[in-house]
Structures are given as C-alpha cells and as structure tokens.
C-alpha cells in the first residue's frame, strides 16, 4: 500500500462517504477504496496479511504437490503413491513449528543469535562437503538423517540475511566507506558462495547472491557497486556455464530456443504444459505433464503444472500472492523504525519474491533454467521449512511496526496472540550513541567523497523530507506510539542510514 492511502484519515468513515457511494458510481469505487484503506490502516493489518498469504500459499502448495507427485512417487523404489505428499505434509508441520518459533522469539534474541547462526551454517556447509553429507543427483548438498534429508544451504540464506543486516546496521555511518560496506559481509558471502558452488548448487548460489545484493542495496551501497556486481555476475555465469556441460546447454538452450530434444526438453515440456492449461486449465488433477513428461514437475517445475491444471487464472493467483508478499513485506520494512528490522524484513521479502520470480521466470521461458524452487509450493523439505521460518520472522517484524507495538501493548495480544502465547513486542530502543568522531554532525552524505556518492547530491534528510506525510500520527486518530518512553516514537528517520 502506498503511503498516500495509508495516510487517509480514518475518521472519514462517516455516513457521508457511503451516501456518496450510493449516489455516484465513482463514489462507490471511492467507498470501496475507503473501506480498504480503513482496514489497511489497522495496526495489525500487515501481520494479518502475512498470515493470510502464508496460509493460502501453504494450502495451494500442498494441493499442487498432492496433484503433481503421485506418478513420480509411485515410480520411486520403496515409495507408495503418496510418499512425497506425506513427506511434504510432515515438513509443513515441522515448518509450522519453526514459523511459530520465528514469530514468538523476540527479534532482539534472533538478532543476537545471528552471528552464531552464520558461523553454524558456514561450518555445516563445510561439513556437507565431507563424507558426512550425501550426494543426490550429482550434488553434495544433503545431510541425510534417517528419513530426513536437510539442505544446509537453505539455512545459510536466512543466516546471511540476519547476520548481514546485523553487521551492516552496527556499522552505521561507517558504511560510507567502501571498506566498511564490503567487509566482512562480502568476503563471508563469497566464502559461502564458494562452498555452495563446490556442491555444486547454482540455484542456491543465485539465491544467496540475491540476499547479498538486497543487503547491500538496503544498506545504501552506491549504484556503481551494483554495476560492478552485475558485470562480475555475468562473467561468473559465463565462466560457470563454460565450465560445466549441463549449465552450458541450459544457457545455449535459453539463447536459442526451439530445440525440442536434450537440454531444452524440460523447458519445452513446461511450455507445453502451460499452453495446455490455457485460461481456465485442465482442472485440478487432470494435468498430463506429470505423467513423466515434465521432469521435476513436483518441485522446480510445479508452476508449469499450476498453469496446466489451474490455467492462467491459477498462475495469476500465484503471481498475485507473491506480489502481495512484495508489497506487504516492503510495507513492514517501511513502517518499522528499528533499522535491523527494516533491513531484515526488506531482505527476506526480496529473497522470497525474487526466488519466486526467478523460478517462474525460467518456467515460462524468460530466464535460463536454474534449480531454484518456488517458495512454499515446490515439494522439497528444507526449502519449505526455512521458508515458513522466514514467514515467521516476517510476521514477527510486522508485529514490531510501531502502531502494532502500541496496539498490542495497550490492548493485549488479541485472540491469535493469546492462542499462540505470543509475547508483547518490544518497542524500538535506539542504541546509545557514541560520541561522534567529528565536532559536528553534518547532514548525511554531505561529507561523502564525491567519487563514492556522486549520484546523491542532495543530503538524505532533505531528500526524505518531502516524502514524510505531515498528517502522520496527528490527524489519523490512531493510538500514538509511545513517545515518552523512547523520545523517538512516531516516524523518525533512521539514524543509521539506508534506503527507504
């Protein structure tokens, strides 16, 4: 939602509005918009939206896995028709627990644990390359413990996001220097990339790259840096592609479509499935592609089956849900004031949505095929568990929006909160400032070397000023955030910088 909508006075919910709606068709639209705005203006709207999207994605995912997997499942030695689906259900159950943990554990605890999580995942990524890990389909990516198989790279993504945000936020103003911007986040990330590429797992590396880029972006790194990364990434893709037969054939296939055999087989089958779906789809369960035509239909290419069985409408529903995540996630990021929460919420959102966009992109033939799964929908244990944990953290962030904090603290946790025994969120407490190194505190950016920040000639404060809605908090009749306790209630600018 845009700020403009959010900024509408809630008190305008008077009879005049509905009257107007009855009189003019235009007024009816306005009325709907008004009701929507009023709903979105509630303090816990973001939280409820996250829950709703997660619920819908989970149900859709389970349904599609049930539809996609029986043929593959039955053909796997030692499994029955429902083995894959039952596994997925169990993983969703486990994921629900992690979701609850992510929602319940106070964010400051999560933040304080993030360095250990990072260390742990780096170690596990190393361990997976040893004989402790298992090689499935030519990638040394799994720990297999009894019936469970766990992919540490999924946890690495989350750990990188949490720890990266922590480090960048702590660095604060020091980020103005390249050295601080890049170290230690980038070297650690590169180490993880290297470990993941040793498995090898290109899809995992791409997602990790997305997380890194998101972190740097929200930390306010200069555009030039992204240009460099883009060039380096492209070179990396070429190198990797040339270095491995199957990747090269995927890229060649992407650049030169029409080849029906070999590498292009999967992409083509995905297009066939989508085309067979048309507008309304063949009907749930009626897909033909799952009968061994489309390899990996139950995980990487499940979107093609959605297109085939539920048609364009089903695809739009999925796209809409991920767009909703993008909007709600960014709304959570913008409405929070704790810079770590802001950065974490934004990064996690970018990760989820970018992963979905890349997956759907290669299924529909816009991108070369990488083994990236569709979050919450593809069958795949670790991915679903970690994604649900991410949703839990995102929902936790939503509960830390200042308005939500105020509402929850003043009016109690509500039914849902009571049910899940959720603790009241902590209001943001800015860190005690060290004495500035310089006598005065000039506007941000003013002291940057021009070479580093050439595009940003206007100081941040000045740039942000017009975007602040003067009506905030004053005429909206909301419960005002607790100003007295922290002196920085309302919507202060983040002192630690970063992009909005």
């Amino acid at each position, binding site marked *: 939602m845009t700020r403009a909508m959010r900024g509408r006075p809630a008190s305008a919910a008077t009879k005049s509005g509905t009257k107007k709606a009855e009189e003019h068709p235009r007024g009816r639209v306005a009325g709907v918009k008004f009701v929507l705005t009023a709903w979105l203006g509630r303090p816990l709207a973001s939280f409820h939206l996250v829950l709703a999207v997660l619920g819908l994605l989970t149900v859709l995912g389970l349904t599609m896995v049930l539809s996609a997997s029986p*043929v593959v499942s039955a053909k796997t030695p030692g499994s029955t028709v429902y083995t894959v689906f039952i596994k997925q259900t169990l993983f969703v159950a486990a994921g629900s627990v992690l979701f609850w943990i992510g929602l319940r554990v106070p964010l400051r605890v999560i933040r304080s644990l993030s360095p250990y999580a990072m260390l742990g995942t780096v170690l596990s990524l190393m361990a997976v390359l040893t004989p402790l890990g298992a090689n499935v389909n030519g990638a040394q990516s799994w720990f297999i413990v009894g019936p469970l198989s766990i992919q540490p790279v999924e946890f690495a993504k989350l750990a990188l996001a949490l720890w990266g945000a922590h480090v960048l936020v702590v660095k604060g103003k020091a980020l103005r220097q390249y050295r601080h911007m890049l170290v230690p986040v980038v070297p650690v990330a590169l180490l993880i990339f290297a470990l993941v590429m040793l498995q090898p797992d290109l899809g995992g590396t791409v997602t990790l790259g997305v997380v890194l880029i*998101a972190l740097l*972006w*929200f930390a306010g790194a200069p555009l030039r840096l992204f240009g460099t990364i883009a060039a380096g990434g492209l070179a990396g893709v070429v190198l990797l592609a040339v270095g491995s037969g199957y990747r090269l054939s995927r890229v060649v296939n992407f650049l030169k479509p029409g080849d*029906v055999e070999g590498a292009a087989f999967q992409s083509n*089958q995905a*297009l*066939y*499935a*989508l*085309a*067979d*779906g*048309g*507008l309304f789809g063949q009907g749930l369960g*009626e897909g*033909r592609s799952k*009968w*061994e*035509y489309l390899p990996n239909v139950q995980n990487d290419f499940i979107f093609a089956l959605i*297109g085939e069985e539920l*048609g*364009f409408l089903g*695809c*739009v529903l999925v*796209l809409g849900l*991920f*767009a909703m995540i*993008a*909007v709600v996630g*960014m709304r959570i*990021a*913008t409405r929070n004031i704790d810079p770590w929460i802001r950065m974490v919420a*934004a990064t996690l*959102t*970018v990760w989820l*949505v*970018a992963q*979905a*966009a890349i997956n*759907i*992109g290669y299924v*529909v*033939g*816009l991108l070369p095929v990488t083994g990236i799964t569709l979050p919450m929908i593809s069958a795949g244990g670790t991915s679903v568990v970690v994604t649900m944990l991410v949703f839990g953290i995102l929902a936790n962030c939503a509960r830390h929006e200042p308005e939500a904090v105020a509402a929850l603290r003043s009016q109690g946790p509500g039914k849902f909160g009571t049910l899940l025994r959720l603790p009241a969120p902590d209001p943001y407490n800015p860190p005690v400032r060290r004495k500035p190194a310089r006598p005065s505190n000039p506007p941000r950016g003013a002291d940057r070397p021009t070479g580093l920040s050439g595009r940003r000639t206007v100081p941040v404060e000045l740039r942000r000023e017009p975007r602040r809605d003067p009506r905030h908090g004053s005429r909206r009749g909301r419960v005002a955030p607790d100003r007295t306790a922290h002196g920085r209630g309302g919507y202060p600018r983040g002192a630690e910088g970063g*992009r*909005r």
Partner: protein
Amino acid sequence: MRVVRILLVIGLIATGVKLVQVQAFEAPALSAKSQRQRSATVDVQAVRGSIVDRNGSPLAFSVEVRTLSYRPQAMRKQWDQAAAKHPGQFDNYEAHSAKLAQRMQDVLGVDAHQMLAKLRSAAKFVYLVNNIDPSKARTITDEFPEVSAEVRAVRDYPGHNLASNIVGVANWRMDDPDTRNHNLHGLSGLESSLDLMLAGTPGHQVVDTEEGDDGVVIPGTVRQTQAAVDGSDVVLTIDGDVQYYLQEHLAAFAKKAGAHSASAVIMDAHTGEVYALANDKSFDPNKPTYDNAAMANPAVSNPYEPGSVNKVVTALASIEYGITTPTAVHEVPGQIQVADRTVHDAWSHGLLQMTTTGIFAKSSNVGTLELAQRVGPDRFSDMLKRLGLGQRTGIGLPGESPGSVPPRSQWSGSTFGNLPIGQGLSMTVLQMASMYQTVANDGVRVPPRIISAEVRPDGSRVQMPRPQGIRVVKPQTAITVRNMLRAVTQGAPYPNSGTAPQAALPGYQVSGKTGTAQQINPVTHTYSNSNYWITFAGILPADSPRFVVGIVLDRPVYTSPDGHSAAPLFHDVASFLAQKYNIPLSKTETPVVTLQLPS
C-alpha cells in the same frame, strides 16, 4: 524500498505477460505439439469367438498373450555408449544382455543360452519369446523397459485332438503389412471357413499415455473410440463326449482292422444334426507344428464306393413303387447277367428261394439287381437324386465332396448292374448316413448340419436356419424298409442269419446294412479283390429312431477277424449312445423273420 518493491512487482508482471503469450497466443501451436508427443492410438483387439459343442463346452477359445521382442543392434550401441561414458554406473551390453537372459530364464523358463544368442545377434529386430503369459511379460518389461511386448492372442483347444478335424486350427497372422490387422485367423476346418464370423473387427482409440511407456494410459484421456467388435461364438451340434468316444473307438478299431483310414458319423435321426464326425487320424492344434495329412477331414472330403450299403436305394424304390413286399419270395440264382457283365453273389450258391427281406439281410447282389431291374433305371436314378447322392449335403464344413453319381444320360449297359450294389458311384460317409436318416425319419431327408447357432458378442443367439426336409418316400415305405433292415442283425441259425449279427444290441431293435466295396486297383484299373471299403450304416433304435450311424473303413486287412465288417464298432457305438442318452429299451424284441426258404 519503493524502488525494490516496484522492481519485484515488475518482475512478477513480466512473467505474467510472458504467461499471456504462452497460454493464449502461442497456446494452440504448443498444445498441438504436446498433443502429438503423448497421444497414441491404441488398438483394441477383437476377441475371437469361441467354438463350443452343443452343451456349451469349449472346443476352441482365445487367450490374450504377449510376444517379447528386442532391438539388439540399437541396444548394444546404447548400452556400450552409456557404459563408456559412465563406467561403473552402467553395465556394458555383454553384462546387460546376460542379466536379461538370466532373468528371462528365471521368469519364463526359457533357455538363457538361446535368449543370449538372440540378444547378441547383429539383427535390428528379433522376437525373443512368443505367446507368454501377460503378467510374466509385465515382470520382464518392468525390469527391462527396452524389451517390448506385443499384444497377441493364441487359440486354446482344451480337447487337444477332440474334433480337431472339424474345428481346425487358427494361428496368429502377420502377413498384413499393417500391423493393426495382425490377428488370429483360421488355417483349416471351421476356424478357416467361419473366420469372418469368429474374427470380429478390431477397434482403436486415441489415448494419452505416460512418457516412455505407451502401456500406461493417463486416466480420463480416452477419446475417439472406435469400439472393437468381438467375434461371435459358434455353437456346434457336436456333442463333445460322443465325439470323443467315436474318435477314440474309430481310431482303435481302424488300427485293429489294419485299415488305412476310417471315418464315421453319428447324426440325429430326425434333425440331421451331426453329434459326432470322426476320422481315425486327428491332430493336436495346440502343438506348434501339425501333420498336414492329419489335418484333413476325409469324412466330408473323401468319397468312396459304398458297396452293399447302397442297396437301401433299391429297397426303398421297390417298396415305394409296390414292386414287392418284405415277405415276398424271389428266386435268386447264383449269378445274373447285366448287359455284358456277369454279377455273382458274395457267396456261391445255386437257385435260392429268398424273401425280399432276406435279399437285403443276406446282401444278395443277384436278388437286389433283379429287384432293381423291376424298378427300372429311371426311377432308380430319380431315387438316387432324391436321396441326395451326387450333391453336397451343405453340412457347413469346408472341402465337402459331393461324391459322384454318373448322370443318367451317360449310363452304359452295365452301369445299372453296378449302382444298385453300390459300385460305380461314390459318396461320403455323411451322404451314406443321410440315406439311412431318410429311412429313420419316415421318408423325409433332412440334410445334415454341424453348426447349430451363432452367439453374437451382445449375447443374442442366432439359430442357423434348419434345412428344408425333403420327402423322399412315403412314411410307410420308410417304416417298412427300416423293419426289413432289422434282419441284417438277425442272429438266427442258418440260413436265416443276417450279415451283421454282431451289430445287434440286446434290448434294442437295430436296423443296419453292411457293405463291402471293391476298390479300383490303380495298376490294373480293374476292381481289386483284396482292397475293400468296409462300410456300415445303422439306425438306433429301429422302432423309434434316435440316431443314425455311418462307418467306413478304407482297405482294412480283409482276412483279419476285424477287417471284414464294421458291425462290431457299430455295436459299441450304439451301446454307448443308448447309455449316454438313456434311450428307452424297445418295447418288443426284434421279430425273427424268414430270410431264405429251405431248399
């Protein structure tokens, strides 16, 4: 953050736009391609109809089987390449084919070495095993998907040799270049002549199948169905039990008598339905190879000269036209001159006083010719025609011979000295039995039939049209002749004994007639004095006929005890029939009549 949000949403929208392109604009073209790759036309086999006997017991039915085939050349290449590329992960072809051959030996019981030779041959395509159980084929193709299984059917003949000369044999034909037309077709017998009725019409349907396995049809995708029409079942008039008895005993008797061949028929006295039609030689159609000689059905295809059995024509004509009565006494000399030929009786005698009954019971050639002369050649020729001689009976079996009767216009002077005593004309055992059926059925000849009904795939039963009965003689004539012929089995003291007292069956009145016909010596082209057709035709019971039996033996050892008469076989068959069908005993014993006045 707004920038990022917009970027993310734009990314999603871009995929949405591409989706519109794929799912709307390009959809028809892509759909057509995907349709092509997964739709398969599946042939639906028409099940060949069964052939069953009059009680519904199957004589022939079809069983679905699989034939395994392989592409040795292509597979050798594929496996060796895979093994070279990923050593350790894949077997090379030698190892793989050894595994396959071993598995086939375990599952199918075939010889692994033979299989290995086929698998390792340089051929592009080989058939590995024919006609195996579908579930076993499935075991193999599941483990070795490169082995393909063709759907076929085999014909099962549960009775083996039972009625095999009638039913014939059908086998799998692949002569048609269109594989969809490969099917079971008849080679001989009814399987061949009724092929159109039995085979049915194969159908087909279009289905979507799983990738890589056309055997797995995706549920709910069957369309464009052209239903297969199964073949009709054919119900015969044959009774399997009677057929078995006749076949066994005829073969045994022929062997005992040293006959070259033998045929016999049992038919219903009133309807002409054939209960059994046997030859001494039969074959087992379940075996892979057949003896061509044994596959024929000489009972319908080989006519023979009937000998004295044919005297019934004279008997019928002379009674019908009031020329004589059974008890009328005739002077029968030892020989008779007909045109340029002299005909003797089978035993030498002087002038005898014989009753009409006696002439036939003792089978006097001279007496018969005397009576025939009085009937006249025209009326005699007419009677032959009315009895169906020289014409096919239309029984429904392939290869039926009409026999041969010289046309009246071509008769020479001596012809009329031959025909009444059963030489110079030929008939099948069916035609012979049919003459006696006329006598048994009070003068109405009903041509014999062997196909009773067609049972269509929908279960409806279509009765084969009953042939029109032909009134040959007045009912009283037939009864009189039937009663006269009882004397053939009369076992009275000399000279009142008939020619076949062995044929008599205690408790039943039995009519019959023996026959001994000279065969032509192929070297001298004259009638031989050692090669005979031994024939017998009988009616059981004579007072209330149920069955007519005809028997012919070809060239038995005439001097052997069983070689000069088929009457003992008739006795056995009649005894079996009487028991099997619980035929009521005759009310009175056969009266003993005078055949020859004491001289």
